């Protein structure tokens, strides 16, 4: 009996006690950038996240985020086709972008800085993503440089046409958080 109990306790301790599942239909992943001064909005339709988080112990939390790059859309089929090509996301060889947290730091009530490694097209960059968390919804935005990941290579590396700065915005709804 004691053995069973301790085994159960051990299992409970090892299992992600605060694992939450992403509710894709209530979540958004969007980005915005400028082309010759004109703001352009896009989004990813398919992404997933694994979150293990306890607000009482935020530092112990973990998040792994995966984006299906082929699901990118600027709202126009001809542009979307181009974005899948090799100068941009090259989705045949790079199907997914990932973000894996390395540390979560509380910065205020319901506010956290999530540090982690962002991988797109084989390039890895350390980023810190500020998020606000309320009612199971994590929201935030993070600026990235598209050329860090060779998004828009070759002639498209000309940042006077397509700006290097891209703001990624997200709203992630979790069940069980």
């Amino acid at each position, binding site marked *: 009996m004691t053995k069973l109990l301790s085994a159960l306790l051990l299992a409970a301790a090892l299992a992600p006690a605060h694992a939450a599942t992403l509710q894709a239909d209530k979540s958004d992943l969007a980005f915005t950038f400028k082309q*010759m*001064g*004109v703001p352009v909005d896009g989004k990813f339709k398919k992404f997933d996240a694994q979150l293990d988080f306890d607000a009482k112990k935020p530092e112990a939390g973990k998040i792994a985020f995966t984006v299906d790059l082929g699901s990118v859309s600027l709202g126009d089929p*001809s542009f979307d086709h*181009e974005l899948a090509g090799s100068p941009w996301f090259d989705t045949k060889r790079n199907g997914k972008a990932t973000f894996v947290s390395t540390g979560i730091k509380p910065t205020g009530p319901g506010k956290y800085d999530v540090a982690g490694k962002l991988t797109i097209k084989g390039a890895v960059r350390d980023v810190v993503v500020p998020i606000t968390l309320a009612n199971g919804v994590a929201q935030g935005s993070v600026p990235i440089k598209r050329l860090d990941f060779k998004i828009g290579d070759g*002639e*498209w590396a000309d940042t006077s*046409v*397509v700006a290097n700065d891209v703001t990624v915005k997200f709203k992630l709804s979790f069940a069980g958080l």
Partner: protein
Amino acid sequence: MSTATRYTPVAVVLHWLLALAIIGTFGVGFYMADLPFSLTRLKLYNWHKWAGVTILTLSALRLLWRLTHRPPADAPMPAWQARLAHGVHLLLYIAFFAVPLTGWAMSSAKGFPIVWFGVLPLPDFVPKDKELGELLASVHAWLAYGLAALVLAHIAGALKHQFVDRDGLIARMSLRRP
């Protein structure tokens, strides 16, 4: 009121400046529409839009100038020819506004607000709407062809005066003193 024999220098400068701008912008528009997706295409689209808004602005100044400064009297010619010439002028003025405005609206409807010279964001006066964008694209194109036809008619008239009537009418649109 004295009957001027020539256009004012401001009118002359605006005429030739807009002639160049309109012909150039039409040429770029005609060329870029069938280009495959590329950096060049994107640049040309932006330049075309900037040029179009510039033409719209200069045309507004030109209209104000035209309404406040009497143009020279008609050269001696049959009444139907004078009416035809004035009709073409009126339609040209309408096109100077209709073509850029439909282009601007088309850009907004397609979800790309115009940022003049990459600096000044212009307001959208139509909502983002795919079908409206496609409709405006064809309206813009046909109006541009209409403008091109009017420009050709206008040039044909000027050439007729220069080489058939030999009345030196084109000197009215020159800065050079006779």
